């Protein structure tokens, strides 16, 4: 029942998104603009610094992700459908998981565009160790999305929610960003430092477990008055 409810929510969000692709397209565009802005800021003498590639990737994901989170939950706020979801006879954490899956998939779509773009713009060997890199990318995205989904959900009925989300989200997800950036950079070094990347990856996975566990435990309490 739990998984089924989560998948129903995900499928419903897909159905809505499929009609206009609004969130997908605008998030992608924003992420690309982010990267370009950073590139223009960092290019010196016609060359972009290679080491910056890892940082820019994760910062663009974080910024674009924050916007996408806000708008994903704006959809549930518009017709107050979040209350209808909370009234369903399903375990409330299942709603969280459904939303989380949607956000994670959106982040993956964004990264699918950003990774080649950054690799080209910065001549950065992002895919030197593809499997490890993918693992770092996935676990970092899940960690960021796990906290983001919970906070965006709990802020839905709050004033000033648009500005409160980044204020709350960034300090807490900084370890995710650090590990993501350092892990990516380790894999891009020559020779690639796989041992170090594995360390960053394990910290990321531990963070994912902690975040998702706390979110599952607190979601219901935070959503109901």
């Amino acid at each position, binding site marked *: 029942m739990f998984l089924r409810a989560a998948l129903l929510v995900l499928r419903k969000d897909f159905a809505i998104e499929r009609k206009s692709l609004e969130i997908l397209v605008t998030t992608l565009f924003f992420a690309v603009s982010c990267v370009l802005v950073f590139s223009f800021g960092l290019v010196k003498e016609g060359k972009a610094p290679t080491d910056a590639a890892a940082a820019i990737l994760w910062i663009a994901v974080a910024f674009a992700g924050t916007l996408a989170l806000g708008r994903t939950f704006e959809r549930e706020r518009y017709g107050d459908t979040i209350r209808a979801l909370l009234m369903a006879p399903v375990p409330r954490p299942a709603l969280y998981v459904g939303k989380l899956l949607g956000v994670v998939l959106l982040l993956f779509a964004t990264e699918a565009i950003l990774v080649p773009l950054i690799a080209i713009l910065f001549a950065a060997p992002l895919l030197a160790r593809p499997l490890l890199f993918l693992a770092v990318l996935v676990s970092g995205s899940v960690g960021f999305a796990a906290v983001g989904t919970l906070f965006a959900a*709990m802020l839905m009925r709050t*004033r000033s929610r648009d500005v409160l989300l980044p204020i709350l989200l960034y300090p*807490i997800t900084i370890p995710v960003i650090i*590990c993501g950036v*350092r892990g990516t950079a380790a894999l891009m070094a020559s020779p690639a430092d796989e041992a170090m990347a594995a360390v960053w990856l394990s910290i990321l996975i531990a*963070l994912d477990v902690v975040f998702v566990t*706390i979110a599952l435990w607190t979601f219901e*309490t935070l959503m109901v008055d």
Partner: protein
Amino acid sequence: MAKSLLAPLAAATVVLFAIALVLIAQAPPESTMGLVQKIFYFHLPSWLGMYSAIFTCGVASILVLAKGSAVADRFAVAGAELAVLFGANGLVTGPLWARKAWGVWWTWEVRLVSALLLWLVFVAYLIVRRYAGPGSDKLAAAVALFGTAVSPFVYISVNFWRTMHPKTTVLPTLPTSMGVPMLFSCLAFMALFGTLLAIRVRLAERETALDALYLAYED
């Protein structure tokens, strides 16, 4: 409960500070830094105070989320405010000391970065409580919970990040002539923490009582 502890705590604070200040004044100045080194006697205990406050807020926040306890909520708010207060003190005294000791205002060293991030989390806590409207006690408690849960990871990740670069020692082993004043300074700050916590919790208790009186009056 807070009421009865307040007077002895306040008294202890005053006494301990008096002793500490005398000892600090008499402690031998460090050879290269002179008087500025003595900022350290106020800097380290500030962090001690901040971490104690964070621990208080973290535990209280768990109780707020698990049980909806109003008492826990009072301690959570008090803890967060004191965390920001003591943390701000640490963040100001630190660079003042570091400028003289290391020649730079700031360094990306693991303890500093972790402390700064944690401080930001509790500033965010206070912002949520102030601006989020009804239900902000639970929202803020979630922030505190995540912040406290994430802090070991911040420490680990920044530590790994920096081990690839030369380290600067933060806490040299202190000779006894400096150790004793430091001890009293720490005790004084902890007593100050306890006093301020008691005052703030009591203030929150009074506010709740006032609200209850308003409600009862309307009935």
